[in-house]
């Protein structure tokens, strides 16, 4: 077996189809995009690229809007990690517990994921509607909190968190599924042994489930981080201009505008590169952090 595990031919046969497709359709275009970022280009076939070195990057880091977008997306990432993973896994554990109605619950939490972004945005627009007709505002009035009604998506204090709530709502279902998939792959005997230890409540979660689910937890965290760093749809549809005083602008939206609205393809590519590098850095950092705790082998 050990010999097979080092067999170059076998490795190549298993690896090449995926690598080939991945190279052609994702990596080579990305490398091209990085190359674009060192050039000025108005996005016209007839106009050759004009090499400008790091100009696009130095402009970016002097651009207040871009800096604001970095700040926003970092807040977005931190809050999303804190919300999405624990809620998703909490739901997973609870559902696993409730033998009755499990199928219904799974479907219920999964539905937001399958809805198209358009439907989600439309719905939340009605929830966050700025007058007392809005679903959230009218609810607040009904329960006597009329003082707290807001122009949710306009107020700089609330708009970013409102977007994070929408993202969380749409994605926790997926982390719930990952958690359930992780749980089902743990042999019953291990879980039963855990039960016999007599640990309960938080202790059980901390000592039994978290170590058991460490791999899926790690995966989910990375998925949240990378997913949020390139977030575009939700932000674009709910606050198409990036919000009041740019309070909901994110790099991907800025990139989209620079390239496809303003014809600054060099700048757009530079932003794409920054998103990429940032994601890689944050993911590697958090992986290192999480790898310090070893998962239980069974």
């Amino acid at each position: 077996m050990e010999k097979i595990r080092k067999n170059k031919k076998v490795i190549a046969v298993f690896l090449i189809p995926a690598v080939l497709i991945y190279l052609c359709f994702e990596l080579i275009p990305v490398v091209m995009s990085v190359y674009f970022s060192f050039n000025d280009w108005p996005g016209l076939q007839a106009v050759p690229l004009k090499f400008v070195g790091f100009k696009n990057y130095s402009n970016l880091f002097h651009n207040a809007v871009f800096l604001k977008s970095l700040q926003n997306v970092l807040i977005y990432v931190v809050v999303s990690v804190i919300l999405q993973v624990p809620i998703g896994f909490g739901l997973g554990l609870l559902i696993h517990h409730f033998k009755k109605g499990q199928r219904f619950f799974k479907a219920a939490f999964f539905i937001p994921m399958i809805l198209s972004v358009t439907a989600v945005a439309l719905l939340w627009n009605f929830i966050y509607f700025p007058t007392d007709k809005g679903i959230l505002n009218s609810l607040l009035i009904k329960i006597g909190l009329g003082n707290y009604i807001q122009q949710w998506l306009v107020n700089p204090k609330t708009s970013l968190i409102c977007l994070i709530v929408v993202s969380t709502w749409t994605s926790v279902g997926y982390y719930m599924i990952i958690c359930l998939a992780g749980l089902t792959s743990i042999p019953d005997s291990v879980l039963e042994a855990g039960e016999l230890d007599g640990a309960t409540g938080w202790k059980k979660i901390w000592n039994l489930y978290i170590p058991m689910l460490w791999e899926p937890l790690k995966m989910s965290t990375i998925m949240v981080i990378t997913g949020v760093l390139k977030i575009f749809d939700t932000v674009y549809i709910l606050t198409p201009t990036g919000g009041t005083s740019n309070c909901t602008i994110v790099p991907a939206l800025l990139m989209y505008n620079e390239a496809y609205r303003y014809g600054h393809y060099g700048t757009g590519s530079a932003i794409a590169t920054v998103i990429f590098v940032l994601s890689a850095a944050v993911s590697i950092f958090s992986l290192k952090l999480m790898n310090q705790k070893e998962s239980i082998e069974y």
Partner: protein
Amino acid sequence: MKTGKKVLGAVLAAAMALSSITPVFAADKVKITFMSRDSGDTPMAKVYEDQIAAFMEENPDIEVQNDSVYEESAYNNKLKVALSTGETPNIFYYPAIAGLKEWAQNGVLLDLTDSLNEDEEWKNTFLDGALDTYDLSAYGVDGIYALPNELNVDAIFYNKALFEKAGIEKTPETMDELYEDIDKLVAAGITPFGVGGKNTWVMGHIFNNILAKRIGRDGIIKLGTGEKKWTDDDVVECLQITKDLKDKGAFAEGFEGMDYNTQMNQFLTGEVAMISHSSPIIPEMFNSESEILDDISFFAFPYFEDKPEYKDTHVVYTSGWMLSGTMSDEEKEATLKLVKYMTSKESIQERMNAAMRVAPYKDIDAPEDAPQIFKDMVEYTGTITDSVGEYFDYDTCSTLVDTSRNGILNMMLSDSAENTAQTIQADVDANRPQS
């Protein structure tokens, strides 16, 4: 990593081999693409489909592909990618004037001057002066780079019943009269204007009208070419007037967060008395099931008594057709044929009848059975002699549209007019192309 290198080599070789195979096309038909913003279920889209089909029947050697996309950002993505790959659609639409400069300079767009001069009869179907809209010589590129196709005439649409209810007897002509009417409406418990601030163009258009009535066409063009600055007193004043409208109670509570569809629905259900909009909204209103259609009419944006010289400057947005500058002779011939077919008197009349859009052509009349409001609009359009488009259309700075509109919305919420002007000017200074 030896295998890795081999793999990479193989991939590159394969990619190169693939790219050397030039696709072979069947050469019997000339294929041209047509790309407009009218697709799907709209009356206009249907007329286009029919006209293209009829054209292909008449010209069996030409195949026209209708690539129209209704939704704005989708349209924009598709067009920009097409330009970047050099697959410029033969006929397309793009909302810009000065912004066309770079495309014109780089041969993306066809200079239509010669084609128009060669066919006097065709040239004469356009309204006098309409072709000048796309004459880019003011920006240093000689030539006419688009054909005006539709006019979006700005006006204030109002609900007669609500005006009567508030005791307003005649529509306002001056801004002071408008302010009085706003007071009357507020006193009667009616929200004067429906504004979907979240779609920043709505406030942007109101500001544009104020700008037109205070600094005129010349002023706006000077603002676009940089002869005039956003921080100039008269421009800041226009911003301030826009901001003051909110304090006068002209807009609904929370309008900054509402979207355009909400605004329309507020108007069509009789919740608000006025909306500031342009002529294409007429067919949309008649497409809805509103019960107040008979009560709707419009009046021109009021002028300022201290600026009587701009009383007759009206905001009219022209939308045009651009033709690809990289066509083969064969394609060019077919494309011009299609364009001439679509701008023939019959075609234009057909579109106006079906879709109620105002067009920049001579001798076109509103259809007999059209609603009165549309007939009035066509008549009103005929009286306009001094018109100006969107302020950013005259500026080569591509970011201005967003910076200014976002800035105006921020101003409505909290920022001062002075700060807003400075923000916009700073953007223009940074992003307007130098040459």
